[in-house]
């Protein structure tokens, strides 16, 4: 794996291998000395055209735990008209001999453009591009789900998500988390259900390998999830073209929010995920976010392990970590 541009790039065995590698990385993080010498002398650039402190520090932590040198670069402009072009930025990083570039960009496909260009030889890892993909988020979600719901019979290694039901609720239209999740979870054998108002589902979603509901309560009753993922709703979605994608935050919360009542109706083993940052009181109430089913904080910890695994596999070219 030289690049990781999309969760759809991973086939079943590759995806399981990344999760297994992430578990081995996580095991090293329980040691007193967390730092591994694996990527010593290599340089990872976090190229973030969009603000995201959480994702950036997760990648930065992962790279540093592998002893890579880390450079954070957050250009202000993101297009030809707004300052330096993507091409010139990447050429500059290439000239500085970056070994891997972790890219977050508001334009869908920008990391693919970099990876497919002659601008750099570096590995390109997508850290979220537009409304396209966020593959390490899907991997950390899968890791979290696997830990909770597949650990029953001993060793996790080699296991996938077969037989599990994953429900994704919210703004699927604009969500790279949802697209990556649908790709990865179905690759790993899970059944995926999407729940959203029709305004927040893309035209074409009917061809996705996922069931769809417009009614959350009906979905919870008819397709009870083992893992329930609540997507972040951006408040600006209420004021964009056409007067907004939904009428009011209050109506959204009533129809699609996860509150204590809905959380209590979940199966006893079910877990609740959120990619963060949460809008408490909009898509999830504090009772649900902080309740016993919530694995939100654990997702963050697993994010570091997953990103260590991805950087390791992409930068060393090996199939599994020697740690």
């Amino acid at each position, binding site marked *: 794996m030289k690049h990781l541009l999309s969760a759809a790039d991973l086939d079943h065995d590759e995806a399981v291998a990344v999760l297994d590698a992430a578990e081995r990385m996580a095991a090293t993080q329980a040691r007193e000395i967390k730092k591994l010498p694996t990527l010593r002398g290599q340089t990872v650039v976090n190229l973030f055209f969009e603000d995201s402190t959480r994702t950036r520090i997760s990648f930065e932590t992962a790279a540093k735990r592998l002893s890579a040198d880390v450079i954070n670069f957050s250009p202000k402009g*993101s*297009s*030809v*008209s707004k300052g330096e*072009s*993507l*091409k010139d930025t990447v050429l500059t990083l290439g000239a500085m001999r970056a070994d891997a570039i972790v890219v977050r*960009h*508001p*334009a*869908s*496909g*920008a990391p*693919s*453009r970099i990876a*497919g260009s002659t601008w750099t030889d570096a590995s390109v890892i997508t850290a979220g*591009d*537009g*409304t*396209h*993909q966020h593959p390490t988020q899907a991997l950390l979600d899968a890791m979290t789900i696997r830990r909770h719901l597949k650990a029953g019979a001993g060793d996790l290694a080699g296991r996938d998500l077969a037989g599990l039901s994953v429900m994704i609720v919210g703004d699927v239209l604009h969500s*790279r988390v949802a*697209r990556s999740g649908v790709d990865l979870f179905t690759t790993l054998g899970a059944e995926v259900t999407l729940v959203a108002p029709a305004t927040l589902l*893309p*035209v*074409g*979603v009917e*061809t*996705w390998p996922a069931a769809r509901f417009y009614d959350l309560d009906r979905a919870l009753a008819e397709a009870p999830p083992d893992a329930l993922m609540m997507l972040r709703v951006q408040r600006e979605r209420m004021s964009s*073209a*056409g007067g907004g994608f939904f009428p009011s935050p209050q109506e959204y919360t009533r129809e699609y929010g996860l509150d204590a009542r809905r959380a209590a109706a979940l199966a006893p083993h079910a877990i609740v995920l959120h990619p963060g940052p949460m809008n408490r009181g909009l898509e999830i109430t504090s009772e649900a976010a902080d309740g016993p089913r919530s694995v939100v904080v654990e997702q963050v910890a697993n994010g570091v392990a997953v990103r260590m695994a991805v950087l390791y596999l992409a930068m060393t070219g090996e199939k599994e970590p020697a740690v």
Partner: protein
Amino acid sequence: MNYLIKGATLPGGRRADIRIEDGAIVLIGRAGAAEGAKVVDADGLIALPGLVDVHTHLREPGREDAETVLSGSRAAAAGGYTCVHAMANTYPVADTAGVVEQVWRLGRDAGYVDVRPVGAVSVGLEGRHLAELAAMARSAAQVRVFSDDGMCVWDAVLMRRALEYVKGIDGVVAQHAQEPRLTEGAQMHEGVVSSQVGLAGWPAVAEESIIARDVLLAEHVGSRLHVCHVSTAGSVEIIRWAKARSIAVTAEVTPHHLLLTDELARTYDPVYKVNPPLRSADDVEAVRQALADGTIDVVGTDHAPHPREAKDCEWAAAAFGMTGLETALPIVHQLMVETGRMTWAHVAEAMSARPARIGRVASQGRPLAVGESANLTLFDPAANWKVVPELLQTASGNTPVAGRQMRGRTVATFYAGRPTVLDGRVLEGVAG
């Protein structure tokens, strides 16, 4: 210089010699000796009336970094054209008699094709006030086609007024059909592919709803409407319905909408970013069928050159548009003629006669016949060539068919009796 074209195949299939003297065709049939004329061997070549493009962006004035009237004219000649309609979205906009006369003169000075400027419908393409259409019509440029192409005349009242007003100058409004509110931020066709690649969708209904409105307006006020770059199956159905009602509507399809689909957006290569966007395979089949059955009248290239930096970036930041003058006829040949969907006579109608009638260009689009001005092109259907952007005449490299094999090539083009292309090479210094 006089010319004798030997053994060409006419659009109807008959083989004949064509003698050109003093700019006109003086004989079609069996010629004897050359009698001092330069002989052009046309054995195996199709002779077509010079092609006429209703939709070309020559970019001058203002964006000479992308194309000039001269470079675009050379590209047109290389593609078999003898007339192009230069769209109005230049800098400054071609919304006054002064600008359209400038473009017309640049075309005349270049000397490769008739450059017929298109006038803007509205001042500055802003969609608020009518430009001085009559002034442009009565200028030396004799504008008959008016379009805000690149922008839609979205205001129904302005569109109505434009349709009414051009009746007095025998003009036509060429509409870029795009409902603006439905396409804010749109990047590609809205459908299966956009849902997966996460690029904002440009729905078919945004095109179809404007076309439906406009054919009804054209019927109501009894005027002529031309629909630019039809790209969807639904648009075809609306135009078919309008024609059945005898509404005076004509429609155009581009070579790229005949050939390519939205699947190419998966590459994120902005060379495939165009407006209207590449559509689904079903839409492609619908526009092919519509061209074959005459629902779509003409092939227009929407040749839209852009400098490299406008495409050497992420998709969302890239400009819309692709070049097409030099590959239009090979694409139509491959898709429509080789498949048996169109005859060469039909191609001559769709790429020469009808576009000339839409633009009211009297000397163009005429049949190959004695007494007609010698505007014609010779096409070798057996020639295979690979598209190498650097080898094309256009000043820009944004062809969507780079690296593809083309079936057939323009060998010679005669414009008003003088060759602009001979032996497949664009000639220098053709201006008379």
